[in-house]
């Protein structure tokens, strides 16, 4: 069974239809790169997947759990699906360690000491073990973003969603975050990334999804699709971002 199944979903803000008949199936271990113009609905799709936005039609199923169902415990769902935002959204009043342990200790009922071990481990994965007791405002943007990734990893999710996580970073800090993504890709994590990093999408994406005006306009193997777009819209889009 697929890890994620998006089945003909519709998402409206008022009368504005933002996602229209979107379907997507993701198997465990896949890395999906989502690209598209600003306003095409990329962020909204990610937010629907972990239940931050309700949908008006269709069905989303993650690991057998139906997202848009009242009976589903969203807390359970969100242990399976991590999301990292462009603006990091770390908790500024909590240390790095506490940022990471907050959810596991509250939700999984583990002790603070166990939590700290987990924090140490996930920080190691993002190369920031020494920042365990720092506060967010003592870190650079790239470091904050890596902590945000570590915070999500601490819940041991099966699926990770990344929404343009390098867009707010200076070019020289982008590399360190992409490196973390690479390592995660190699370790077999299932990921959906909204990204403008075409190079990354080409090398690590197992599949590419191109969104246009609230629909998936084109979808296919990442490298091939980028090399030979089948639709005019994707060609135009690539022309605009690559030049």
């Amino acid at each position, binding site marked *: 069974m697929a890890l994620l199944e998006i089945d003909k979903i519709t998402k409206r803000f008022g009368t504005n239809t933002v996602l229209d008949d979107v379907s997507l199936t993701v198997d465990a271990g896949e890395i999906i790169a989502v690209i598209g113009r600003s306003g095409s609905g990329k962020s909204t799709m990610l937010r629907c997947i972990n239940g931050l936005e309700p949908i008006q039609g269709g069905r989303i199923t993650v690991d057998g759990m139906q997202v848009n169902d009242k009976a589903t415990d969203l807390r359970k769902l969100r242990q399976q699906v991590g999301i990292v935002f462009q603006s990091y959204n770390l908790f500024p009043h909590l240390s790095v360690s506490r940022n990471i342990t*907050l959810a596991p200790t509250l939700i999984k009922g583990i002790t603070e000491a166990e939590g700290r071990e987990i924090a140490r481990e996930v920080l190691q994965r993002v190369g920031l073990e020494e920042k365990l007791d720092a506060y967010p405002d003592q870190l650079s943007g790239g470091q904050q973003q890596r902590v945000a990734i570590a915070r999500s990893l601490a819940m041991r999710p099966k699926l990770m969603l990344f929404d343009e996580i390098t867009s707010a970073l200076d070019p020289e800090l982008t590399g360190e975050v992409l490196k973390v993504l690479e390592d995660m890709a190699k370790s077999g994590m299932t990921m959906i990334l909204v990204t403008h990093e075409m190079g990354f999408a080409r090398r690590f994406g197992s599949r590419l999804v191109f969104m246009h005006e609230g629909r998936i306009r084109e979808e296919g193997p990442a490298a091939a699709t980028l090399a030979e777009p089948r639709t005019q819209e994707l060609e135009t889009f690539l022309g605009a971002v690559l030049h």
Partner: protein
Amino acid sequence: MIREFGWVDVLYLVFAMRWTLALTATAFIGGGLIGLVIAVLRVSRVWPLQAIAVLYVQAIQGTPLLVLLFVFFFGLSIVGLPVLPWIAAALAFSIYAGAFLGEIWRGALDAIPKTQWEAGSALGLGFGEQLRHVIMPQAIRMAIPPTVGFLVQLIKNTSLAATIGFVELTREGQLTTASTFQPFAVYLTVAFLYFLTCFPLTQWSRHLERRSYGPA
């Protein structure tokens, strides 16, 4: 019997301040509890609860404190409570403080970016957990300066309890005036005592405010 306004009278005034402070403290605690509920109702995502909070705040903030005091004073007997000025004052001032503190604290909660709630949600925290662990700690820091500022308002406004016969600083001033016929000296002293209490708080509130804009 008419006598000179002397040091003994000043001492009496100083002693009367304990009732000003006691009433302030009572209202601050009572109003704080109400205010907390109001603020949380306002940020809850349930509109009837929000509406209740809005109505409460609007009604209390649109009514003179003097009216509140008198309504409670004369309402006590209707609900079978003893008609005592301090009961009426404690109730009226708590209700009043609840509206203002609720509004101040809601403002602080609202000032925390929506993305902080969302980050909590995304990690699987429930509404209460987000509020308690993510939003409140940040909001409290922001809320302290205006809360101290309101405390000054509250101290000053407890003077109105004098009108229903609660003997605090201002009422003691009226009594002293009646026996000394030196209203100017007496009321200046009273004002000075209020000033001594309020001014340091005002300064502190300003200091805190500057601090929260400082290098973070």
